[in-house]
């Protein structure tokens, strides 16, 4: 489902010059796997996730996600890939204020031609257990509920791959467990999940754990 070969990414960091955050990463994730990527803060976990999610195209190496080779793609092609092929969940939920849950979940439909976006959005919300909070504004939801709305948004186009960057980082222990349980259920339904984390709780739920250090996976 995911195939990464010789992936490198460096940042221009003014005083320190070029900093190589990823240095020849190689990774293969079969379909249906729930992979946890761990590592110290600043080890490049988010950077890796952004490359996999098509948010960062300034890398070298080969990256193939859900059948799409990402190297050298145009902005339009990458945008389409983000829109349809993957879902991304962040530590902060990044819901749009002023839009209801359904409207937030349907946000990807603004950038795609597609029938009945709100009934799809309702299905996605039901899938994450929020069928009763369709018209709530983000401000009227708890942290755990907001993250589940964000997950529903990531699932809007029914992607094969869900990418998560510290998805439980802003949640208390109990709600974190609920979200992790949701991930396990979604994984059980066949969704491939890559979650970047430094939390044991999430790591323990994964079916495979790799760790990132000095720009490489081990």
């Amino acid at each position: 489902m995911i195939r990464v070969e010789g992936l490198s990414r460096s940042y221009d960091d003014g005083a320190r010059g070029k900093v190589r955050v990823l240095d020849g990463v190689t990774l293969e994730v079969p379909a249906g796997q729930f992979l946890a990527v761990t590592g110290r803060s600043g080890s490049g976990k988010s950077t890796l996730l952004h490359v996999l999610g098509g948010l960062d195209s300034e890398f070298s190496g080969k990256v193939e996600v859900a059948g799409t080779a990402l190297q050298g793609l145009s902005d339009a092609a990458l945008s389409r890939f983000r829109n349809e092929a993957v879902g991304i969940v962040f530590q902060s939920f990044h819901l749009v204020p002023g839009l209801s849950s359904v409207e937030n979940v349907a946000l990807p439909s603004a950038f795609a031609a597609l029938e009945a976006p709100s009934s799809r959005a309702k299905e996605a919300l039901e899938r994450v257990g929020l069928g009763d909070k369709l018209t709530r504004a983000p401000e009227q939801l708890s942290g755990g509920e907001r993250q589940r709305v964000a997950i529903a948004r990531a699932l809007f186009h029914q992607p094969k791959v869900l990418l998560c960057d510290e998805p439980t980082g802003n949640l208390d222990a109990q709600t974190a467990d609920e979200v992790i349980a949701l991930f396990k259920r979604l994984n059980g339904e066949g969704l491939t999940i890559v979650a970047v984390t430094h939390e044991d709780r999430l790591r323990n739920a994964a079916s495979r754990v790799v760790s990132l250090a000095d720009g490489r996976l081990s």
Partner: protein
Amino acid sequence: MKSAALRKLVRLHLSRDRRGAFSSSFGIAIGIASLVFFVALGLGVARVVREKIFPVDASLVEVIPSQLALGLFGGQLDQQAVDRLSALPGVKKAYRKMSVKVPAVSYYDGDFFGRRVRMGVEIVAVGVDPEFVKADVKLGEFVDAGEGQPIPVVGASRLIEIYNKTFAPARSLPQLSATMLVGFSFPIDWNRSFIAATAGGPFTSTRGQVVGVSDRGMLAGITIPLETAKRLNKSNNADAEHFSGVALQADSPSDVPGIVVAVKEMGLRVDDQERRMAENAGAAVAITTSAMALLSALICLLAAFNIAHALSAAVRTREKELGIMRAVGAKRGDIFALVLGEALVLGLAGGVAGTALALAAAAGIDMLAARMVPDFPFKPETFFLVPMWLPALGVGLGLLAAIGGAWLPARRASRIDPARVLAGQGT
């Protein structure tokens, strides 16, 4: 990006910061209002100058004799010269004019439109080819009726205006209109003058009857048929062979410069006093209007800067939101369109409001002027002229100012790096 979605997101963003949106639109509205107002005023005043104060017919050339008689037929306006003028390329028609060289007065004693009047005025008369004023003749025929018969007279529209606004009020005389005047008859005594010694010819008395009022009528006097002028000159042993002027009707205004050159080559002069005054007045109006329009354009420019500033701030505070749109599939162009779309709404609102404000102000001023400002000559019903294109220009410029202001913020928004703004903590 789907346009329905674009509209929805634009509306969402605008509704979240109503005050900011209002102030951005307001700036544009002020600039556009002032622009539309001053352009309409300039056009309106120019129209009054053109149509009422100096109603110059752009295809008419007034030829007058040279001050010096040059050689054989140089400088003289006799029938031969008129024939040559008529034959010039671009000349459609030549209308001869001959001033009556006999002094005359009108001594009026009787009922003057409901008021008893005793008044003596010096009369200056010019004869013209009847076709020259034919269109404005409303009573009988504008031809010489013969010795002792009433003389058909055409008055000057501008003279009525000046009479009504300045002469009559000061003397509590009644207001006149062209239709009232037609049919009015008054005595004319030839070979009489309050001012100058007469030529000593026989004193005769006839009547004049107003048969029409025309822009082509002589401003300081009466216009009569050419044959009448000839007859009066002849019977008083004055020159009845030479014309005092010829009005040349050109095929089109573009023929006028060529005609002017040919006329001068014939040793004749062109009386372009009126045309020059009209041009000078027109230029003065145009310069003032341009200055005010420029000032208004500057206000629009300021409004554009204001929008640029406001949108830059909005883009900064909405960084994460724009980033998440990128993350769920927005292209750079979608983000650009989103920010520009907001500006378009602001510009459209500002442009429409500004144009409406200007038109309302114009209507208000016209109403006040009608009620409060005393009459003066050539006072128009409206000081404004609003051609179809002016509101379109107002709204268009409002949009343009908004787009201009939004361009850089929109570009910056489209280049937001979602990876940078989305990772980490914070709402």
